[in-house]
């Protein structure tokens, strides 16, 4: 039973195994044992291991005795002789005393042997593996500590970057200019400073909104004036600052704008705009331009219209000489008349020009003026002229009052009524009506209406121009309506003319401030 178990158990063992009697007789051996000793198992059975070992018999016997007495496996060493003469192998051994089964008369020992050579190799290999493991472990530890450092450094850099980004945002937020950052592809707003939010009347941060919807008004897509294309080159790299001026469509303010593509903290190339409000400058520029144009017109008109009477005077003076020589007294008389008329005209022109030049500066403090009274006063002043022309002037009672430079507005009234009668044409009964009406926008307009020659629509603008006359025969200087317009303009009002065309009369409308505050600047 035991021997069968041994066969089964040790058959596939890599170690040489022997079942031996307490005296050293081999009862059984496995294939590995046969291979080790170079002899078949059947040749080994029945032989004493002392015959097969080079170890002294006493030592062997002592070892076996120790094995028999011990409950634990007993390590030891044996030197076996192999079938090849002279060849011996050293082995480590473990001897086990097996329990005595009923079919055995005496205790048996199991001897397991391992070649010392093989064992050594294994240890060396094991040692090598251990050494390798130790080295790579060391390396790993070094590497991981390096990585840990790098991660720490990176986190530090990231933190510093975030901090400086935060600082930048704080600085931008405090700037007195519109600053915003938007994605160049999606047009999504990524940052708007406080000034920008206030300027655009935004509630909340505005972040995440689309720039052309939030910053501009009435855009159906990315703005046609978007500067994104100018901020990057063909490869999409930032090219530098692009500077331009624009009147914002959302708040109508003018801005001096600096646009630039920059790399955002998340790595995206984004558009950053910094825009300073130049509305005031722009407005004064416009006023200045307008004044310059006015001045240019004025000089031009003056040089032409003041020169004309001089040419006339000098011309007919020269003519007088030949009239006297030829004795043409009739022509002499008419020439003298022409000279006198031209001189008179020059005087009127100079007076008017002086008057016009005063208008720009001399505005009396505004006061309440009854337009009905102003019209009636004008009629009194023009009484002789009205009577001579057989004209009838009617004035609406209780017209709404105005807050104006009273002296100037009386001038306006007088000018318009005088013009209305002057250009009555062949009308036998010139009629002039002064009144007021409420316009579509609720504003009150005053009007002076006549039944005179009328004005064709194409001349509506021209009649208010300096020295412009529609009728070359009229004795006016072409300053009257320019003066009227100037006074109304200075009050922040508007003046315009309506007429059903030639021969159908015309109506001059004008608006004026009806409250104290309107004239303050």
């Amino acid at each position, binding site marked *: 039973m035991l021997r069968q178990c041994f066969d089964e158990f040790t058959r596939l063992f890599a170690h040489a195994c022997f079942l031996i009697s307490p005296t050293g007789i081999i009862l059984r051996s496995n294939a590995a044992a046969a291979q080790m000793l170079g002899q078949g198992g059947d040749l080994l059975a029945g032989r004493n291991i002392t015959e097969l070992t080079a170890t002294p018999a006493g030592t062997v016997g002592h070892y076996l005795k120790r094995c028999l007495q011990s409950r634990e496996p007993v390590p030891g060493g044996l030197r076996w002789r192999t079938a090849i003469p002279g060849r011996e192998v050293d082995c480590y051994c473990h001897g086990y005393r097996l329990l005595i089964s009923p079919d055995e008369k005496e205790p048996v020992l199991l001897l397991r042997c391992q070649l010392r050579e093989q064992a050594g190799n294994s240890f060396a290999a094991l040692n090598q593996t251990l050494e390798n493991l130790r080295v790579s472990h060391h390396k790993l530890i070094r590497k991981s500590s390096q990585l840990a450092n790098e991660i720490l450094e990176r986190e530090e850099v990231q933190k510093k970057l975030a901090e400086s980004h935060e600082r930048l945002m704080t600085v931008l937020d405090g700037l007195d200019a519109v600053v915003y950052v938007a994605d160049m592809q999606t047009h999504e707003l990524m940052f708007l400073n406080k000034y920008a939010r206030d300027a655009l009347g935004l509630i909340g941060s505005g972040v995440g909104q689309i720039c052309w919807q939030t910053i501009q008004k009435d855009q159906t897509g990315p703005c046609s004036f978007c500067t994104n294309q100018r901020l990057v080159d063909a490869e999409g790299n930032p090219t530098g600052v692009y500077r331009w001026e624009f009147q914002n469509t959302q708040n109508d303010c003018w801005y001096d704008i600096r646009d630039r593509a920059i790399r955002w903290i998340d790595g995206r190339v984004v558009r950053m705009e910094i825009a300073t409000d130049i509305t005031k400058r722009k407005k004064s520029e416009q006023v200045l331009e307008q004044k310059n144009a006015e001045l240019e017109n004025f000089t031009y008109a003056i040089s032409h219209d003041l020169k004309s009477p001089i*040419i006339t005077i000098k011309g007919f003076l020269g003519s007088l000489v030949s009239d006297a020589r030829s004795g043409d007294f009739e022509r002499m008389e008419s020439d003298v008349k022409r000279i006198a008329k031209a001189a008179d005209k020059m005087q009127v022109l100079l007076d008017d020009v002086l008057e016009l030049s005063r208008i720009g500066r001399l505005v009396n403090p505004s006061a309440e003026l009854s337009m009905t009274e102003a019209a009636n006063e004008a009629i009194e002043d023009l009484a002789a002229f009205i009577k001579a022309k057989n004209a009838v002037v009617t004035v609406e009672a209780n017209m709404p009052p105005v807050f104006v430079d009273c002296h100037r507005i009386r001038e306006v009234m007088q000018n318009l009524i005088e013009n209305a009668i002057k250009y009555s044409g062949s009308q036998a009964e010139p009629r002039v009506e002064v009144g007021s009406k409420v316009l579509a926008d609720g504003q009150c307009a005053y009007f002076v209406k006549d039944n005179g020659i009328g004005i064709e629509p194409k001349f509506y603008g021209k009649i208010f121009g300096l020295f*412009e006359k529609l009728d070359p025969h009229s004795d006016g200087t072409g300053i009257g309506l320019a003066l009227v317009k100037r006074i109304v303009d200075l009050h922040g009002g508007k003046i315009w003319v309506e007429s059903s065309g030639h021969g159908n009369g015309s109506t001059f409308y004008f608006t004026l401030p009806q409250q104290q505050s309107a004239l303050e600047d």
Partner: protein
Amino acid sequence: MSGESLNILLVEDNEDHAELIQRSFRENQVANKIYWVKDGEEALDYLFQRGAYTDNTSRLSPHLILLDLRLPKVDGIEVLKAIKTDDKLKTIPVVVLTSSESEKDIRKVYKYYANSYLVKPIDFQQFTMLMRDLGFYWLGWNKHPFSAWELPGTQ
């Protein structure tokens, strides 16, 4: 002067200047006939047979147009433009005669193909001399591109 009848269309709003010009021409026996219109609109009506001139068959076909710049209703530049963009009228020499010495006017006038730009001299002597020379040059020395020239609608 040539035996041919040479006509001037004078576009001038200042009555006195028109009289001076006509007197100078008469005294120097410059033009045979001068027709005077008083503003830009009348000048265009005359040339294009419009308005008061629709049925006027006694109009003269001008060989020279003397044009002032600052005119009531339609100003001189507009009249010049209308003349120089009309296939038939553009061959008529247009001499701008004005009191303006502005560079802007001079540039503008030549831009619209005026043939000459003259500033009215203040001095009477010079004024008459200019009128005489102007007449001699444009109606005497100068050759015209038309022999039997007639405005549309004239007889």
